[in-house]
């Protein structure tokens, strides 16, 4: 009956939506950011930790949202490891383009996010997939927090 949603709800999305691996605050983090979708009430908060070179070394999140949103956050948490701010912005843009248009730029890091490509057929769900990225961009723009700020 739901054959034609297979593109949207690929197995990895269902799995990650159900059992996300990174759905937790970080004990120690450098920055945090939030994303809100006022239309439906979804909310994501992201915590990031950077290494000495400024590249992302760890990401955790808390999300109130659907399978797409949680899976997207969880895949994001892995895809962004090792990226610095400019790389992240590029990746975020490429990701947004992919989920909006179905077309993906040649960005190696995008590979692991491909399961979300099916969202482009569901315009009202695009925001579910991009919300974690919005939270991440918020973290990039936020002034660095001291590690003591956690908790």
């Amino acid at each position, binding site marked *: *009956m*739901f054959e*034609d*949603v297979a593109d*949207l*709800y690929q197995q990895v999305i*269902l799995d990650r*939506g*159900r059992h996300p691996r990174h759905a937790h605050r970080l004990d120690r983090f450098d920055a945090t950011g939030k994303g809100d979708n006022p*239309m*439906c*009430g*979804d909310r994501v908060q992201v915590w990031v930790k950077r290494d000495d070179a400024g590249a992302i070394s760890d990401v955790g999140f808390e999300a*109130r*949202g*659907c*399978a*797409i*949103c949680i899976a997207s956050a969880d895949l994001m948490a892995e895809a962004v490891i090792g990226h610095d701010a400019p790389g992240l912005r590029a990746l975020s843009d490429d990701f947004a383009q992919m989920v909006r248009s179905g077309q993906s730029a040649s960005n190696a890091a995008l590979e692991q996010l491909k399961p979300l490509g099916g969202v482009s057929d*569901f315009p009202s*769900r695009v925001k*579910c997939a991009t919300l974690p990225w919005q939270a991440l961009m918020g973290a990039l723009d936020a002034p660095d927090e001291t590690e003591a700020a956690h908790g």
Partner: protein
Amino acid sequence: MKDNFSPLDLLALRADFPILSETVRGKPLVFLDSAASAQKPRAVIEAMRDAMEHQYANIHRGLHWMSERTTEAYENARDLTAILIGAPSRDEIVFTRNSTEAINLVAHSYGRGMMHRGQAVLISEMEHHANIVPWQMLRDAHGIELLVCPITDDGDLDYVAYERLLASHRVGLVAITHMSNVLGTYTNGARLAAIAHAHGAKILLDGSQAVVHRAVDVAALDADFYVFTGHKLYGPTGIGVLWARAELLDAMPPFMGGGDMIGSVSFERSTWARIPHKFEAGTPAILEAIGLAAAIRYVKAIGFDEIGAHEQALVDHALARLSDIEGLTIIGRAQDRGGVVSFTMRGAHAHDVATLLDRAGIAVRAGHHCAEPLMRRLGIDSTARASFALYTTKEEIDFLADTLLRVREFFA
């Protein structure tokens, strides 16, 4: 399972709504999102088309045939609206864009114009944002207190708390929904009004959902303000209604200024037209009033007894069928309710449920339904909501229930 469906000739009625024979994604449209906005019968579509093709001009100020006839049609919509809700006078009907504007009008004009610092506005936990945010803005701009009446776990208004709040605070205005768009609960408007009046407060009822399913009589309710929105009552978008007692409207300052709402204008000073015109600045939603009039004629011709009975049967059927689905929780168990059923599904977010239903051709709404504080009160983030109209069938509800079983499997 009861089968006391009303004697509406559903096949004929459904034929009045062209959109109901559409398919989406190759599947017949099963439209269970009428509480967000209802579909339009041919009578409404044709009334608007007819005006634009044959009889249209700006109103009130024209001395020519087209303007005179269009003015008549516009003012006739006011007459019909007054009759629909039992307003004592047609002059008490103010056309707005929607319920939201009607409430904002009251918050600005009555709230800022006639309420005093230290007085309170009393709303409830189950209000739509449209009946929360304007009062918050009034609170913040004008020093009014905002009180919130709790609801019971069943989703009824807590009438004991209601009376207590009125007794213990200086409530100037009560603003409460006449039917919840999430829980389906009808509040007892007459009882709310009597208690409010006993404590010297005025009362506004948000009838956005309530007018759709039952005959409403503002005089019998003894309300002071009543608002609703055309597009949920099978009318066009762009038109809503504020009813208020004439003496209140007379005393209230205007909300917006411009043409049609003035008595005379000089740079030094302007005077206001009489009600209702004082509150209708600028060219109004003429075509939309004509469409609303057609919608009112349409539902009145069917009759609210029939519509109400049919929808009651639909709700009973839906509650029975959905209760049978394991893992599905119905949100709201009030005794007296209209054609709205909200639910959550274990293991599946409402958005995901809605997307799968959509793939089967079923349109439901999912999210906070513009009632975030109510979600918080219920301890949930969102619900899926199926809502019914006069054109909804028992078969559509059965199809919803069957499809929900498959959705549950999908996310299992």
